[in-house]
């Protein structure tokens, strides 16, 4: 092999066509960097996307790429992974693509634990169709299709994932280089479906919808960066902590300097705490929220197949069926 590839080696010649200032640029940069960092082999890597702004992603990555149809990327990627389990298969989807029209496929990819790295760009809006409210939009979202504010309750990507039996759920913020780099590498290393929700800012139709926790100046107080085995601390001086409140069966913020022993230690394998962390708001939980190693779908599929999808017999061994007879002239 040649020398180690850099992020630039994963960029294509295609002109990137997202709106200037779109959060997608930062994610693209984070992904190309992560590919270089994990030593991804371009020809062994495929990006499969659905429809939406984020789904243009494959055109901009120098690997194999398949820009498919609305919502169906997880199903197509499942077929691809079964056909060639050696491939690194990434799926790029959005809140509309993955949680509305394609929610069924996302759910089934998750419960099967297919070896896919699914990047869910959540901007809480339909961008490509010019700004209608999406399944993650908050109640009251004003949009061209909801001029008086939307009335639908939003879906929580994390709760959806865990409800579907996801074994890996993580979160990152588009512009958070350090956090994204870590989350993407963890997702890459996971055997099974790793779902990464990326808070992505749509500068045109839903600007600053996540500003209450993504703005850098207040990030220390609004973001909880989780690390397995470490206490859940945040704040300017890591002086705040997350504790369990048994009276309300929920998580709350405490003064970590006063009661350090009450601060929860992050256990990625704890699905109950993961659910509470997903709902936590200010701080917002980021990083790997839940990880439960398990056998991947493709590993089970091949292990259960009598010949691991190889041809070990000929059609002539089967063509006679249970019984045959001969007719002579």
């Amino acid at each position, binding site marked *: 092999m040649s020398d180690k590839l850099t992020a630039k080696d994963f960029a294509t010649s295609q002109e990137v066509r997202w709106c200037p200032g779109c959060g997608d640029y930062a994610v693209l940069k984070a992904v190309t960097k992560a590919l270089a960092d994990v030593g991804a082999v371009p020809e062994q890597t495929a990006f499969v996307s659905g429809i939406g702004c984020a789904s243009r992603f494959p055109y901009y990555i120098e690997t194999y790429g398949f820009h498919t149809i609305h919502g169906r990327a997880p*199903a197509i*990627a*499942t*077929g691809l992974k*079964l*056909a060639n389990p050696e491939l690194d298969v990434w799926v790029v989807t959005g809140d509309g693509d993955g949680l509305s029209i394609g929610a069924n496929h996302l759910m089934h990819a998750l419960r099967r634990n297919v070896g896919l790295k699914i990047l869910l760009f959540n901007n809480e809006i339909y961008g490509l169709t010019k700004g209608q409210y999406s399944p993650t939009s908050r109640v009251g979202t004003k949009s061209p299709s909801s001029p008086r504010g939307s009335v639908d309750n939003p879906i929580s990507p994390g709760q959806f994932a865990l409800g579907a039996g996801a074994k890996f759920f993580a979160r990152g913020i588009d512009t958070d280089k350090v956090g994204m780099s870590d989350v993407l590498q963890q997702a890459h290393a996971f055997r099974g479906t790793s779902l990464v929700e990326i808070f992505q800012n749509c500068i045109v139709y839903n600007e600053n919808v996540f500003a209450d926790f993504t703005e850098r100046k207040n990030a220390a107080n609004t973001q909880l960066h989780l690390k397995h085995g470490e206490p859940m601390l945040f704040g300017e001086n890591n002086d705040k902590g997350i504790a369990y409140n048994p009276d309300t069966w929920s998580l709350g913020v405490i003064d970590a300097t006063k009661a350090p022993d009450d601060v929860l230690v992050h256990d990625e394998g704890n699905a109950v705490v993961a659910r509470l962390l997903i709902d936590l708001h200010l701080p917002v939980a980021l990083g790997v929220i839940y990880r439960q190693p398990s056998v991947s779908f493709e590993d089970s599929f091949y292990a259960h197949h009598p*010949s691991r999808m190889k041809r070990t017999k000929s059609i002539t061994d089967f*063509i006679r069926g249970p019984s045959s*007879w*001969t007719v002579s002239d």
Partner: protein
Amino acid sequence: MTDNDPIALNSRTHAQSGISRSSNRLFFVTKNKDVDSIVVRLAGDSGDGIQLMGSQFAVSTALTGADFATFPDYPAEIRAPVGTTFGVSAYQINLGGGSITTPGDTPDVLVAFNPAALKVSLPLLHKGALVIVNNDAFTPRNLTKAGYDVDPRVSGALNDYQVVAADISHLNLEAVKEFGLSKSEGSRCKNFWALGLLLWMFDREFDSVEAWINRRLAEEPTLRDANIKALHAGHAFGETAELTASLSQIHVPAAQLEAGEYRGITGAEALALGIAAAGELADRSVLLCSYPITPASPLLHQLSRLGELGVGTFQAEDEIAAICAAIGASYGGMIGVTSSSGPGIALKTEAMGLAVSAELPLVIVNWQRGGPSTGLPTKTEQSDLYQAVYGRNADTPIPVICASTSGECFEMAIEAVRIALRHMTPVILLADGYLSNAAEPWRIPDMSAVAPIEANAVPESDEDPQRRAFSRSQKSLGRPWVTPGMPGLMHRVGGLEKDIESGHISYDPANHQSMTDLRAAKVRSVADFIPAQELESGPDSGDLVVVGWGSTYGPIFQAASTTGTSFVHLRYLNPLPKNLGELLGRFDKILVPEMNTGQLSTLLRDKLGVDPVSFAKVSGQPFLISELVEKIESLKGKTS
């Protein structure tokens, strides 16, 4: 006749029925029927094991060398309310020494497990047919459910038939008493009891049925032994002295089949083997991605047992996921196949467009059934031809081929894969509910004589990978099958329009025109590779030609042969064979019988500018030879 009397024969039947009897044989002679053939119909409740009994009878028939055709006719409900007419499940088999191509118009033998089965089947029989009924099921309650005011066994309703009324339930339970089964378990053996009787009547061996029971119930020795006992008991019942007085064993002579090795096969079995064979011919693994739907599921079941042929099956979460996973598999270098029936095919439509746009190979099998909507899930129809040829958004042409018989599903499956790989396109293979379940003897092909299937090679060049991935063959317009994992060929595909040369996204108006033209030309080019259309039978010019497609082959063949009419049967529907227009032009009139409202007629009018006479039937039942003969004769009569 009383319920205690196991056998009661109506003595009036023979003289009236046209049954001629020689020492040890019964020949049933009826109009427009295959000589030396007998049609047997088994009917009962959905839970009576009729389909199982029928298929085992078919296997034992095959082993004697008789030709046969079968027609499973069952309700959509898995276990419809017992004793009702709409819950009747039936299995019809036509067996004989001549060429058998249909399950027969009118049964000669009926086994009716209850009054409802008798009520539904009686109008199908010709006078003089042998009717075997289960006395035990003729209770007042069952008679009421079947809509009989008076017991048909005593009302005279069966006067025109030869009746054997046996206490099948009771005799069966007696036979299996020793095994200590519950009443319901014991009762479930009665299909094998009746099969035993039938095997005796037709002079069949037990072996294949016993072997099947031994295999199937290996883990449950008590049930296994009870079913074998029931089989023997039914056979012994037939052999008893009381019976031989009134019933002769029926011998069907071996058929005049072409020399070779044969097996019995259903369309689902043949199509599964064909798909697996295509994988071997192309030296690729196969992934069938499918969602359960009647009557397509048997293909999923069949292929899931052919793993050692490099075949995998993926049961997807829905119809859309099924085709999408198949597309993903094709993109990854396996032969992607999806299979469904009309409503499921409708859901797959958008994804077919993706495969067309991305120029990926894919086989889409449609086991057509009655519609619209859920329609008649278990009944056959040919009404998805428009959907296959015309039914997509935008200009999205796809080659469409079809299978005429159960056995032909094998070669058309290979043909579908061959076209898909050569032209890098999805291919629709039309079959139907009748073919899926119907069994016939099938001459086992010599696989060494079948040409390998070649995928288009990636051209050696210094051009950029995107361009190389879309460098198309001049003859087939198929592109190379470049799959992830191949070094140095990373490229992007998708549903956006692409430049005809570079393969990059293009919104250029002239390019879209060129790409639309190219997609049409690609499908048209399939006609350069397929065989010229030939006549199935009859003179090569004249006043009338009958044109068919799909599973109507059998009845049309018989009707055309009977009347000496020219017969053309299509396997390639889009594009049509190049010589078809010229061939049909040699006739004054074209008759198109089909199980829809005239879809092939429309297609021929559209593509060839001819004006066929449509003979359309959508009753959920295959054509009868007699009704086709009548139509042909009426048209001939009008030709001066």
